[in-house]
């Protein structure tokens, strides 16, 4: 079997590309935003340096003698692209091979909940931990019966003001337990989106509120899109839905305690054209 040839065949196709005019417009906007940001940065630096200079001035009410030494102007800050990120180390997870719960070195457990997922064949644990001076909610699950394939997930989240650890655990359970039993092609199917951007609930879900279209950083301009808050089995979820030139609509479900009101929610990648 020639893998390259198989790849070539498997990766063929895809929806139509965005018009080149749109790509150019987004690029121009990004360039303008970058210049504005750089201008603001220079202005802020000037204000800070000005402030330091002002603060360093001798109090006119205090008589000084001799000359005042002034330090040379510091070189301008060079903003460089960040280096390639390294792979993260999970703070709290089940080892796929041994099935043991493992924590990263330096993790201190403040509060632990054993088996928060009440489903047979699933091993789970959640905790409030501190790591490197910060508090985290962490949770991990493993489908034990999955041999030779074993499925699992681990989540970590900084505590969200106004939301509880219990609420977050339940949202994780609703979002990620079922996909462990169908990792190929799992569809939650809690809402569908129509061509005019209207969401309809299914499978016992309740739509608490919805708006259309989604923000520009959640969906490209001009495609049917919507955001919503829904309730499923007592868990609140944020929904971002959009119809692009693809066989099926893209519908993403996120934990509402992580993205209250879908605020700052991302489908995957921030659109450079976002306002």
């Amino acid at each position, binding site marked *: 079997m020639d893998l390259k040839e198989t790849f070539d065949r498997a990766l063929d196709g895809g929806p139509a590309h965005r018009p080149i005019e749109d790509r150019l417009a987004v690029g121009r906007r990004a360039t303008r935003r970058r210049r504005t940001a750089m201008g603001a940065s220079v202005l802020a630096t000037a204000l800070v340096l000005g402030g330091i200079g002002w603060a360093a001035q001798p109090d006119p009410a205090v008589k000084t003698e001799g000359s005042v030494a002034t330090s040379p102007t510091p070189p301008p800050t060079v903003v460089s692209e960040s280096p390639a990120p390294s792979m993260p180390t999970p703070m709290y997870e089940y080892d796929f091979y041994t099935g043991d719960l493992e924590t990263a070195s330096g993790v201190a457990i403040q509060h632990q909940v054993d088996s928060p997922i009440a489903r047979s064949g699933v091993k789970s644990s959640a905790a409030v931990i501190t790591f490197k001076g910060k508090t985290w909610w962490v949770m991990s699950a493993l489908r034990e019966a999955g041999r030779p394939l074993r499925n699992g997930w681990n989540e970590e989240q900084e505590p969200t003001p106004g939301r509880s650890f219990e609420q977050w655990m339940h949202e994780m359970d609703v979002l990620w337990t079922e996909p462990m039993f169908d990792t190929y092609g799992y569809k939650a199917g809690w809402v569908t989106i129509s061509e005019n951007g209207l969401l309809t609930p299914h499978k016992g879900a309740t739509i608490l509120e919805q708006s259309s279209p989604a923000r520009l950083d959640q969906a490209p301009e001009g495609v049917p899109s919507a955001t919503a808050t829904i309730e499923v089995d007592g868990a609140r979820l944020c929904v971002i839905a959009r119809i692009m030139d693809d066989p099926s609509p893209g519908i993403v479900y996120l934990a509402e305690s992580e993205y209250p009101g879908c605020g700052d929610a991302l489908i*995957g990648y921030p659109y450079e054209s976002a306002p």
Partner: protein
Amino acid sequence: MRRSDREAAYTDFVLARQDHLRRVAYALCGNWHDADDLLQTALTKLYVAWSRVARDGNPEAYVRRILVHTNIDDFRRRQRRVQTVSLDVGADMPARERLDSDEQAALMEALQSLPDMQRKVVVLRHWLGLDVRETAVELGIAEGTVKSHSSRGLAALQSVLASPAEPLH
């Protein structure tokens, strides 16, 4: 260089290479929505940096690097997909009916089931044809790590896609 000249060169490059680059994104993401977003993000960064990148003479490598590392960023942010790991690679693997009926879907599913870095190594090494050193530089990892990810990734793909008598090349 005037903006119109810059945009003309950028347009030529994008129209010529966007198909291939989105396939790279698709291989990394596993769905066209994310692939389309990922490519748009990369092409926007390319637009902003076009003068410098075009002067360096390899805009495609620049975009590919953004695709790979933006996807890593996404992985770090979301870390929420259910992962599947093969515990007994190549042994006692039950036959999957869809392998016979839909090789394309099977390959993409198998590829997406690989851990993030294994998937990137397999795509760069065995589809795009980068050598070990180039792959290591591209991903910012050691050459030995590339080799181990490559062999594990291929073994996992083989266990899903091919019989033992038909090794992947």
